[in-house]
């Protein structure tokens, strides 16, 4: 018995534009968790992440006609969500001060909390301790894998910059994680 293949994202977009709203519901089911993850990891606030996720899907739904055939829906929705998060960060006036440092925060913070936590929690704490630009790149790397071009599109940065940020982010993560192990022992 042949198994019916699930429709591709592009197909679902086309079906929504043809007047089938259930297709957009499928897209929401596919990506709401990932978009929320990106929003939460960027904003660190449940309510704001929730609002940013909602805003991203609402904007995507309203401007679905501008979605280019052949483009990746995930990249598109992540880009919309990322911009919604940046707007919120700008409004909070924390964005500039968060963006400035090129090194991980050194004060007591997430690293300290990581003691005696399992590996995943320690990694999450280490990611939280990264500067904003590295944290976002790592979050998108987590969501999109090694699709550097897609990450660059979401962030609106050249691919070389994304690769550099990712390299430095991993370096800092390794340093933070080994520091945590030392503290633990």
């Amino acid at each position, binding site marked *: 018995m042949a198994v019916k293949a699930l429709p591709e994202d592009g197909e679902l977009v*086309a079906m*929504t*534009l*043809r*007047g089938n*709203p*259930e297709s*957009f*519901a499928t897209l*929401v*089911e596919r990506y*709401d*968790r*990932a978009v*929320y*993850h990106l929003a*939460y*990891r960027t904003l660190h606030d*449940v309510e704001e*992440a*929730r609002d940013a*996720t*909602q805003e991203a*899907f*609402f904007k995507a*739904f309203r401007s*679905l*006609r501008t*979605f280019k*055939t052949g483009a990746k829906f995930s990249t598109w929705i992540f880009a919309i969500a990322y911009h919604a998060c940046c707007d919120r960060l700008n409004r909070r006036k924390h964005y500039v001060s968060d963006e400035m440092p090129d090194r991980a925060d050194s004060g007591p913070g997430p690293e300290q909390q990581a003691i005696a936590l399992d*590996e*995943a929690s320690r*990694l*999450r704490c280490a990611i939280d301790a990264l500067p904003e630009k590295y944290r976002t790149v*790592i979050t998108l*790397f*987590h969501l999109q*894998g090694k699709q550097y071009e897609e990450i660059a599109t979401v962030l609106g940065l050249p691919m070389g910059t994304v690769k550099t940020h990712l390299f430095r982010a*991993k370096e800092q*993560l*390794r340093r933070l*994680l*080994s520091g945590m*192990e030392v503290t633990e022992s």
Partner: protein
Amino acid sequence: MKMDDSELERAIFALPLEEPPTGLRSSILLATAYRPAPVFSLWDLAALGASGAIAIWLVALLVLGGGSLFVHTLGLIGSFASRFFSNATTLAWLAAGGATAIWLSLFTAPQPAGLLSYRSRRRAGR
């Protein structure tokens, strides 16, 4: 112990996604795909507004000038319309425009799917 690149990547990919708050999906769906259709479309509102404005104008004519002003204004409008439509040149231009529109609609090139569906949705909504 220091993680190598592949170990770190494996650990990153193994991280679970954040759990979204309850009701997030339903609130997104209610704001997008399952949003209740508005009672009046933009065209309905425009038609209602125009009809309302004409009605108010006619009532104002009746109230301010009595029946004579009302009849006089209607007569003016009627004479203008009859002059407009009895002019052979005007009628010829109208016919030429209509025929061209019909002819063009027969030879229109295929439109992008998005635009087509938007138009058909608007037509269906009317």
